[in-house]
């Protein structure tokens, strides 16, 4: 087991290397001048005075792919991810600032998706072909087809425009002043946790108020997928012989469902978790744009729109790392859930 983990972790740098090379090769679709211009504010108005050719030469922007990549990689290995013109700060600092915001959103979303999906899926499966099951079948079809941005905007219209309950953004102005200007200690960068550690329950409530709509908006599709997966997987296990045996022994239906069937039905759900993490990272891009919530997603969009490649490369490395580690954790979880699975 330990050997397996070490082996997987040893492959990790290789995958990250290939991934960064892939993203880096996208960068070279742009001309050296386009890439240079990103770093020069108001390049259009002061354009003629800038020694473009000299700068391209100095930063090696016209060298072959492998040389440019090696240059970037040598800096990254020294811990320097470069400067992000779109965020106007070093890439590492921008990631440290925006990543916790997205983690916060993802954690809330994950609670909704997993708790909701498993509970509702169990309910639908145990009421197979009865009303709750039929409702679930129709509702999840809508849930899967509903685009995050359409649902997000709908939530904004109703709960912000009309009812004025949940505002967009990440914090209200007064709470921002508390977090960034007072002696508020930022332990994790996640406002929900930091505010509790600082004993500021008003900030906690404000942060939560801003998180409600985005976390719902981007969970709904994955909640539907999760519900379906749980439902069909549980339906399948409920037909197994050992379930019949348990029933024959006189075990109550509730215990049969929860202890005998559901535990075995969870395996495919765990498999799904990997793609859910990837989808949540992608979904953050849309949802953070809709709700003007400043996290990694919005950072990536503005970086992409500004052709800010140091930022895109840095963010790609982080995202690749998260996904690879998630997949490792999932493989380990298998062995816990199903003792017959052996990792080699």
């Amino acid at each position, binding site marked *: 087991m330990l050997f397996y983990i070490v082996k997987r972790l040893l492959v990790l740098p290789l*995958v990250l290397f*290939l*991934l960064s090379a*892939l*993203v880096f090769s*996208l*960068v070279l*679709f*742009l001309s050296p001048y386009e890439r240079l211009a990103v770093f020069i504010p108001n390049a259009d108005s002061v354009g003629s005075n800038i020694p473009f050719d000299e700068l391209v030469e100095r930063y090696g922007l016209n060298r072959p792919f492998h040389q440019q990549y090696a240059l970037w990689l040598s800096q990254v290995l020294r811990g320097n991810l470069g400067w992000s013109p779109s965020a106007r700060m070093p890439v590492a600092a921008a990631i440290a600032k925006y990543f916790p915001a997205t983690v916060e959103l993802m954690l809330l979303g994950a609670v909704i998706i997993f708790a909701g999906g498993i509970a509702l899926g169990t309910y639908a499966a145990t009421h197979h072909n009865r009303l709750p099951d039929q409702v679930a*079948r*129709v509702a999840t*079809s*809508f849930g*899967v*087809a*509903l*685009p*995050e*941005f*359409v649902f997000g*905007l*709908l939530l*904004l*219209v109703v709960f*912000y*425009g*009309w009812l004025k309950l949940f505002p967009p953004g990440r914090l209200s102005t007064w709470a921002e002043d508390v977090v960034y200007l007072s002696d508020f200690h930022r332990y994790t960068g996640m406002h929900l946790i930091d505010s509790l550690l600082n004993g500021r329950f008003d900030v906690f409530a404000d942060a939560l108020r801003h998180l409600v709509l985005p976390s719902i908006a981007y969970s709904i599709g994955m909640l539907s997928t999760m519900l379906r997966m749980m439902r069909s997987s549980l*339906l*399948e296990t409920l*037909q197994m012989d050992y379930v019949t045996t348990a029933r024959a022994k006189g075990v109550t239906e509730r215990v049969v469902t929860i202890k005998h069937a559901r535990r075995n039905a969870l395996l495919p759900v765990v498999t799904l978790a990997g793609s859910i993490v*990837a*989808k949540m*990272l*992608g*979904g953050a*891009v*849309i949802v953070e*744009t809709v709700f003007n919530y400043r996290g990694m997603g919005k950072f*990536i*969009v503005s970086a*992409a*729109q500004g*052709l800010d490649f140091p930022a*895109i490369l840095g*963010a*790609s490395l982080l*995202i*690749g790392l998260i*996904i*690879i580690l998630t997949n490792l954790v999932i493989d380990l979880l298998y062995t816990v859930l199903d003792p017959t699975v052996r990792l080699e």
Partner: protein
Amino acid sequence: MDTLRRLAKRPLGMAGLILVLFWTVIALTAPLIAPPGERQRDPYTIRRIGFSSIPQPPSDKARLGTTGGGYDILYGIVWGSRTALRVGLIVVGATTLIGTMLGGVGAYVGGWIDSLVMRITDLFMSFPFLIAVIVMSIVLGKGLDKVIVALVVFGWRRYARVMRSEVLSVKERDYVSAAESIGAGRLRIFMCHILPNSIYPVFVLSALDIGSMVLIAASLSFIGVGAEPGYADWGQMINFSRNWLLGAVGDPFRYWYTYVWPSVAILTFVLGWTLLGDTLRDVLDPRMRRMK
């Protein structure tokens, strides 16, 4: 025919089929429903009725109203259905072909080719699809054709996986050994015996993907990465409506027509393909048939 009959017995599947047919008919008859203006060079540019920056409610000229900038909502939705259908069909057609071939041939031939294909697939899998497509289409520049290219480049990976696992099991069947024993060539066995018997799960994925690829293309246009401004694209029309979401003071739903119609269009289009795909899966998968 049998498949069709079984499809017809399922109300959700029927609803999906009707929605898909509905949007296909709209797309095909777009020039009749919403004829482009005489001086309009490109029919895919949304017709503008005036240049008022404030959305105008439904009237005789624009039956579903106009967005800010005077874009005719009905025109945008009708021609947007062509855009959606085109994106869906091209992307899914190309990704299905690439993924099926890579995954299928890899699994059938085995050895290092299979390992190589799977490692490449894993690499593409280790990155969120949406973010990859955003980065690639930004690099390629503005325009829907660039979005399509980006969707194809990153979209084939799931087909490769599904096809591989199918072929791995199909190639062990007796009829494949039988064909081998009478001396059939490898190409013939792959095309005539393996491919037809392992393609169904791929078809299901394709049907589901037409909806989701259109959705992703719309998301890109929504965040301003996809189609050019003014191009008939549902995602972009919703982007147009963002400034009018909150309505006016005391009248939060004043500009409802700017976001309701495009939203309904996207939702029903994607819903149609999702329902159809789900039903196809149930109908084609014998295991599911037994459970009913």
